[in-house]
């Protein structure tokens, strides 16, 4: 046994996967999941194993994980919650194939939207696909559950989804590790048919999965993490916690006036019998969940109607945002402590995130604004990345930000609807992730719009990962998609070229068809890192 290590939840997942003997890991960076693959990349550099790479997007990551599985080896696939939307196609069908080498998908949710455009709860996705889901409450569980997930995946021939949330991913705790397992031998799946999801096979596979359902439910029913503690002295109140909520509950448990029966759920499908056993002893059930009211919503179908449910759907707990120690205390009837106040009542101004001093995007935004000032109305669609900060005052340069790559598709829709000029602004990595397909559509109809790719030569917002296509080759990608060379320009974006670049944007906006301008300059943060 080694001394316990202080690890981020993300680091614990990475180490758990290495100790489970993974042969490969794939992912696309996204807060709060990024550090998992960063740790694995460092490991791979030192020991040349496992194979670790950033991928073009989450869909290609999961497909590569499936490939590892079909030849009998274990792989880890990582992404943030909205990334699973991109990977939804392989994910939903991966539930049907007969997973051979264990496949574990770690999805990091961001309740409270610290760094995200929504706060979707990935437990719904696991339930939708019909795959097992594990939900760690801290770094130790993140390590243990990652290891266990590979066993479950191979036993039930399904991928396993591990759902972490921001405070688990970016929370540090001491982790005790266990002995590392070797890699699995290279060995093709025993039969091909379960991997060929033509309708006749798919029907058979889905039937198999449904047949295995009771065995999976039985496993989770007796899973030690789904722990039920009945307090026979209190027939009034019971508490259900899921995932991280356990930490907040344990924290104030000693302050409860009377002991309370408690069921924790960290492994899904959730244990229905344990829920019924708990419900049979109480009149009111408090449900504490980080994320959507996933368990709460299903409770009505499991427990008798006369039991009161206190949770997000009853309105007792805010339906939006993260749980906090205070929300949990209030729900349990424990008063919160009073902190200190500003003695003189000074009004504290906010300090929102902003583009770094010297950021190349600022110069691009100045050019775009100068170019479009004389065209009213106009539309600037944008995307997911640092440049979304172009929405903030001083710039007020962008008008939309929805999902990866949406800027180009939305620009085409707006142009098709009759607006001119329309400019789509997105980063190099976002373009490669999901913008290329939309640009194909625009090329196919020669849509009257202009795409600005802000090429800062890195995936900046998540800390400067390497882009999948190096900057000098980006031009060839765009040409390959069919944009005419006369209307594809590569320029340097810089304070001294603001007017010159504005002139070029004006010229291309006036061209009645699709045009692309790649505005290049390295991210200041990446440049700084190279120096040190």
């Amino acid at each position: 046994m080694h001394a316990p290590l202080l690890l981020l939840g993300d680091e614990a997942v990475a180490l758990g996967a290495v100790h489970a003997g993974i042969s490969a890991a794939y992912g696309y960076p996204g807060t709060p999941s990024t550090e998992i693959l960063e740790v694995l990349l460092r490991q791979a550099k030192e020991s040349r194993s496992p194979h670790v790479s950033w991928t073009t997007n989450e869909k290609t990551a999961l497909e590569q994980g499936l490939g590892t599985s079909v030849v009998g080896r274990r792989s880890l696939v990582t992404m943030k919650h909205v990334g699973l939307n991109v990977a939804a196609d392989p994910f939903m069908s991966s539930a049907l194939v007969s997973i051979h080498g264990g496949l574990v998908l770690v999805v990091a949710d961001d309740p409270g939207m610290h760094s995200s455009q929504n706060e979707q709860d990935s437990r719904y996705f696991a339930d939708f696909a019909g795959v097992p889901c594990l939900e760690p409450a801290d770094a130790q569980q993140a390590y243990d559950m990652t290891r266990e997930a590979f066993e479950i995946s191979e036993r039930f021939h399904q991928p396993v989804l591990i759902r972490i949330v921001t405070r688990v991913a970016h929370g540090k705790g001491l982790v005790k590790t266990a002995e590392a397992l070797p890699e699995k031998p290279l060995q093709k799946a025993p039969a091909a048919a379960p991997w060929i999801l033509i309708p006749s096979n798919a029907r058979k596979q889905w039937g198999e999965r449904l047949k295995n359902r009771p065995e999976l439910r039985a496993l989770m029913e007796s899973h030690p993490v789904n722990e039920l503690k009945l307090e026979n002295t209190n027939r009034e109140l019971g508490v259900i916690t899921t995932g991280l909520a356990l930490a907040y509950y344990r924290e104030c448990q000693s302050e409860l006036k009377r002991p309370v029966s408690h069921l924790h759920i960290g492994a899904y499908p959730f244990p229905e019998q344990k829920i019924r056993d708990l419900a049979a002893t109480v009149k009111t059930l408090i449900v504490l969940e980080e994320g959507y009211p996933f368990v709460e919503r299903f409770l009505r179908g499991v427990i008798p109607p006369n039991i009161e449910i206190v949770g997000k759907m009853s309105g007792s707990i805010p339906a939006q945002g993260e749980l906090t120690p205070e929300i949990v205390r209030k729900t349990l009837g424990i008063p919160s402590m009073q902190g200190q106040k500003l003695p003189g009542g000074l009004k504290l101004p906010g300090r929102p995130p902003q583009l770094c001093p010297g950021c190349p995007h600022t110069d691009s935004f100045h050019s775009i604004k100068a170019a479009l000032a004389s065209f009213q109305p106009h539309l600037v669609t944008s995307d997911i990345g640092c440049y979304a900060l172009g929405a903030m005052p001083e710039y007020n340069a962008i008008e939309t930000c929805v999902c990866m790559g949406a800027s180009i598709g939305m620009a085409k829709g707006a142009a098709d609807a009759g607006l001119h000029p329309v400019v789509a602004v997105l980063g190099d990595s976002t373009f490669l992730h999901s913008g290329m397909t939309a640009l194909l559509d625009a090329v196919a109809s020669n849509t009257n719009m202009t795409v600005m790719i802000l090429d800062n030569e890195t995936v900046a917002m998540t800390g400067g990962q390497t882009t999948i296509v190096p900057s000098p080759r980006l031009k060839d990608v765009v040409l390959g998609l069919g944009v005419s060379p006369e209307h594809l320009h590569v320029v340097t974006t810089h304070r001294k070229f603001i007017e010159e670049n504005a002139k070029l944007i004006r010229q291309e906006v006036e061209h009645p068809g699709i045009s692309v301008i790649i505005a290049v300059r390295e991210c200041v943060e990446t440049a700084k890192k190279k120096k040190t």
Partner: protein
Amino acid sequence: MKYDIVFAGVGGQGILSVAATIASAAISENLHVKQSEVHGMSQRGGAVTGTLRISDSEIHSPLVPLGTADLILSIEPLESLRYLEYLSPEGQLVTAIAPVQNIGTNYPLMEEVLTEIRRLPNSRQIDAERLAREAGSTRAANMVLVGASAAVLPLQPESLRNAVRKLFERKGSSIVEMNLKAFEAGRAAYAE
């Protein structure tokens, strides 16, 4: 023993290294540790906060409940005031005084900010930037802050020194020495 710290600063100032150093010292004394950080979007020049909880028994929550923190440790004066509701009535605030002026005219007058800090029941202002410059580089301001907190933390100064050594050993002995000098300057400044 249970000791809760709330960290404050502006993205890029190195507040996470302050938390990492203290956490590493606590672990070397076989204490329980839970830490929470927020990475990503909010790091871009925005307000950054984190928590560190140290205890001789098991800790569950990574977050500190309102009104219970023993210490606010801040690397920027305005930011030091942002999380006062977490500070217990007996809690202490230790902050560096060099402002990060990236919000234009929204930044209050410096004197107003420092007066608020001074009027708190238990606060200490440390000229971390100057002390770090004297130690060799303003980049060591965060280690000045670690030094300043040494007097109030339930940890041995030697554990903190070792943690500083460990954090910088990769960068060579002169960087280690400079940061240790910054640490000692912080300790001395707190004692003044």
